[in-house]
């Protein structure tokens, strides 16, 4: 019995049963009394503290540096700045117990709720419908090296970065070809990546004017 108790003491993580802190709880805010964070203007809105699950963006080798930065933040740092990237698999009561320690933390202007990061859905992977054929020469070169079409290479490029892709197509052949990219498992070597990164934007490849302040 004593052995059991000792073991439990040693092995049981400190949970919300004994403290408001646990490995899944946000750390207490450093300045709990601060009414506003520096992240935005002070609005008279209730805090959500909840990040979007997804950011759907134009994402292909020819987007600007700020989009690459956004994608990296969403898939890596976005998760790391909040909590370790985790997926919670818990029963309702367990999760409810856990969240008792999250929600008040946010109400105190504390850090964020746990998140598995912000998933990226890439659109415009193949360019607009009018310029699908005109991929960059570097992309075509790498595609040929792996024995796939340029379209498949571009889809693989986004999938390799953890993004989901949503290519549209009209013909059954193109629909099938796009779907087949799911099963491509080849890795892009550093050399492949360098060639693609150095590839100039193909003439006529239209970037969507969807970002910014407008």
């Amino acid at each position: 019995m004593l052995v059991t108790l000792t073991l439990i003491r040693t092995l049981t993580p400190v949970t919300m049963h004994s403290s408001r802190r646990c490995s899944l709880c946000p750390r207490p805010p450093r300045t709990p009394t601060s009414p506003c964070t520096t992240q935005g203007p002070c609005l008279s809105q209730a805090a959500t503290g909840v990040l979007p699950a997804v950011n759907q963006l134009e994402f292909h080798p020819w987007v600007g540096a700020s989009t690459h930065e956004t994608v990296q933040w969403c898939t890596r740092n976005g998760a790391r700045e909040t909590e370790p990237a985790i997926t919670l698999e818990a029963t309702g009561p367990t999760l409810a117990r856990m969240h008792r320690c999250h929600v008040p933390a946010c109400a105190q202007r504390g850090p964020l709720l746990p998140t598995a990061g912000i998933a990226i859905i890439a659109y415009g992977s193949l360019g607009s419908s009018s310029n699908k054929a005109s991929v960059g020469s570097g992309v075509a070169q790498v595609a040929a090296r792996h024995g796939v079409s340029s379209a498949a290479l571009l889809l693989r490029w986004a999938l390799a970065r953890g993004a989901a892709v949503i290519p549209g197509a009209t013909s059954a052949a193109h629909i099938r070809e796009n779907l087949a990219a799911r099963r491509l498992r080849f890795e892009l070597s550093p050399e492949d990546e360098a060639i693609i990164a150095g590839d100039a934007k193909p003439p006529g490849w239209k970037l969507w004017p969807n970002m910014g302040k407008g």
Partner: protein
Amino acid sequence: MAGAAARRDSLMSPRVAVLGCLSLSLLGLLALGTPRIAHARRGDADGIHLTVAGPLIDGTVPKDSRPMPRMGFGTCCRASASGEPLVASILTFLAQGGRLIDTAQMYENHRDVATAIARSAIPRSELWITSKVRTIDTSLNHAATVAEVDKILAELKLEQLDLLLLHHAKGNGAKERAAQWQALLEVAKAGKARHVGVSNYDLAQLKGLQACW
């Protein structure tokens, strides 16, 4: 700390307590509901497990936590993205094993997507339907955003979206974006969307949504 341990012990089954066996004690601890935590399975071939907004708000957890397919079918911006050609191409996509259909209010093809879904006869639970609230230059407030979501569901003939996005940040101020985001969280809580997110948001705009104001 001792109290916590005692409470845990009192919940253990008599058999475990009597034996005091190391392995059984560990099993007992697991059985007491230690949260099972899996590291994010972002690399899975079968899909991406998205953050669920609902439980983050009120502690409820959906029974269904299917991952989002990595390969979807976009329905924007081409001649065949409406009417019968769209229905036919979606049916081809579904017949080839695709399951995610991406649409939006701006594409004006929700009814065609609904037709394709109905004709495919694929169970709703196998499909993943993403749509987006038109937010560009609309300056939607909280209530108007919720009303637009109800329109989307009616047009798609769905009770629930798998993923619902704010289509653009552009054309909205920080206050409008915050109101629209809070509306989406409310919609998720009401069960009208399993997951909520955004589209075309830059880094600063994303961080703005997350801030505790």
